[in-house]
């Protein structure tokens, strides 16, 4: 069996599960973000009284943090009241950050766990050898009552990545490249197992970037066999003992895709689809109005450091705005301590409270008609960041920072090595 199948089997009290089988599995941790007041209404409609386990459910306020409108303030208010009534052990209010960053930091994500959240990017937690998947409000309400959810055991595909990337090429470039090859519907209903020498040596934040974007290929979940870097991370934090599951040697994947990323250059997904991917050098010079570094994909310390290394001692282009939002308070503190946020601010960046608002035009950094944004977030759907007439390009934090300096979509490798544009 595959490690994912072993996780599903263990949590549903079975020895063996088979592809296509429907199982009812116990949930190790569930999370509701602040777009989902509906979970509470559905919980009550289904005669829910108390949540099944107050230590295994968290609310995270990240999409509207702090509340930008009276309506979102009301959402926060009702969710806070519910969290208090149920005496939830973990409640992350407006001072915490993006759910997929906050939960691992708090030790709630560990190998072998089934993690379900009301956010599609819950696939992120495959980075830790957990099975993470996103659901809507009604499914979540049934979990809040029963602690279980039904799953169809998915087909599992292998994406094998070998090679060592060149300097300036980030995990985000790797996953954008994969998006362009696998396509937005390439893994619908399936689980992706990322393997290969690149993955084996990859650090925790890089692993999270790849697993995060798996849902953009349609995947139900993503998985990476935990390496020593993951174990070092979770051993320090995990709130419960855990068991690492391993895939049997005789397991046969339903599909295999192999890539070597040794020669990869910085990548960009151009409007309006995540799989519309090119090398940055292939895209015609486009003028940009806004640059954004943040979210569950691109707002970790490593991302802000990459940006700071490019921005340090320089000024962003006159006609551009750069928004930097650390993914969590822990990230923000770390970036402050190391001077990365000061580098960004000195270059002309606006810094906001940890959260994910601009990614989906919920809060801060919304685009006007005709505007163009280059962002380290994960979606460029039509109207995703504001007006239907705006355009969103997805790129690595390094590419976003380089773009902020020039005002045009810019390959950070060119900027570093050749100083193509003499800035300041």
């Amino acid at each position, binding site marked *: 069996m595959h490690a994912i199948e072993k996780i599903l089997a263990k949590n549903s009290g079975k020895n063996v599960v088979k592809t296509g089988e*429907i199982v009812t599995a116990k949930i190790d941790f569930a999370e509701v973000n602040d*777009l*989902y*007041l*509906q979970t509470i209404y*559905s919980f009550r*409609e*289904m*005669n829910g009284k108390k949540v099944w386990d107050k230590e295994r459910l968290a609310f995270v306020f990240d*999409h*509207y943090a702090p509340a930008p*409108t009276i*309506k*979102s303030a009301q*959402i926060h208010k009702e969710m806070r009241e519910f969290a208090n009534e149920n005496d939830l052990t973990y409640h992350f209010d407006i001072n915490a950050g993006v759910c997929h960053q906050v939960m691992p930091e708090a030790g709630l994500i560990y190998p072998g766990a089934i993690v379900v959240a*009301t*956010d*599609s990017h819950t696939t992120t937690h495959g980075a830790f050898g957990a099975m993470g998947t*996103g*659901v*809507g*409000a*009604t*499914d979540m309400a*049934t979990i809040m*009552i*029963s602690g279980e959810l*039904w799953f169809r055991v998915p087909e599992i595909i292998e994406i094998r990545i070998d090679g060592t990337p060149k300097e300036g090429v980030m995990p985000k470039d790797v996953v954008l490249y994969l998006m362009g090859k696998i396509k*937005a*519907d390439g893994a*619908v*209903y399936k689980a992706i197992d990322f393997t290969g020498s690149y993955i084996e040596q990859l650090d925790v934040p890089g692993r999270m970037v790849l697993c995060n974007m798996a849902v*953009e290929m*349609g995947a*139900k979940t993503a998985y990476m066999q935990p390496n020593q870097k993951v174990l070092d991370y979770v051993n320090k934090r995990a709130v419960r003992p855990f068991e690492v599951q391993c895939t049997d040697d005789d397991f046969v994947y339903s599909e295999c895709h192999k890539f070597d990323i040794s020669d990869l250059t910085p990548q960009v997904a151009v409007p309006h*689809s995540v799989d519309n991917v090119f090398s940055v050098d292939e895209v015609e010079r486009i003028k940009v109005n806004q640059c954004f570094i943040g979210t569950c994909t691109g707002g970790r310390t490593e991302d802000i450091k990459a940006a700071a290394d490019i921005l340090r001692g320089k000024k962003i282009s006159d006609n551009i705005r750069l928004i930097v939002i650390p993914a969590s308070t822990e990230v923000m503190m770390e970036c402050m301590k190391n001077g990365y946020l000061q580098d960004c601010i000195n270059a002309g960046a606006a810094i906001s409270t940890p959260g994910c608002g601009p990614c*989906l*035009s*919920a809060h801060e950094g*919304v685009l006007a008609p005709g505007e163009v944004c280059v962002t380290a977030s994960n*979606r460029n*759907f*039509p*109207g*995703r960041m*504001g007006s*239907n007439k705006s355009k969103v390009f997805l790129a690595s934090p390094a590419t976003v920072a380089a773009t902020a300096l020039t005002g045009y979509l810019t390959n950070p490798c060119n900027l570093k090595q050749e100083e193509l544009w003499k800035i300041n």
Partner: protein
Amino acid sequence: MEDKLRGKVIVLGNNIDTDQIYPGRFLELVNPEEVGSHCLAGVDENIAKNFRKGDVIVAGTNFGCGSSREHAPISLLNMGASCVIADSFARIFFRNSINLGLPLIVCKGISSRLNDGDEIEVSIKEGTVTLVSSGEVLNGEKIGEYAMKILNAGGIKPLFRAKMKEQQ
């Protein structure tokens, strides 16, 4: 749930994501009618305005990709869509729709066979789509047993309530 539906179709393209079905800027709304009035605003603001109750949304591949927001199927239901037929659906959207009692039929190639305004008759149970003008029948996939059970119960909520009562 009624097995046979009849209505006119609106045909959309591939990869219609949840931001197009229900844009982020309306996520704070909770009133069902208001939510329905913004359905598909990311494709065209006029779709919901001109929608007739009972009509059918037809789309290409990967309909509902993107966010887990349940507002997407809620807005389709409140706009009055009787079902959605597509070449394929995204996973979370599929679960959310069935949970809320919105039937979805996978019918490969349907988006290239129909035009806006065509009238069709749908059998949810059989997964068939009949073109009223010619009588031609297109065979879609039958809805899975578990999903059908949820739809027949009127969504997961009544089914779950009954299950919890049984356990008590």
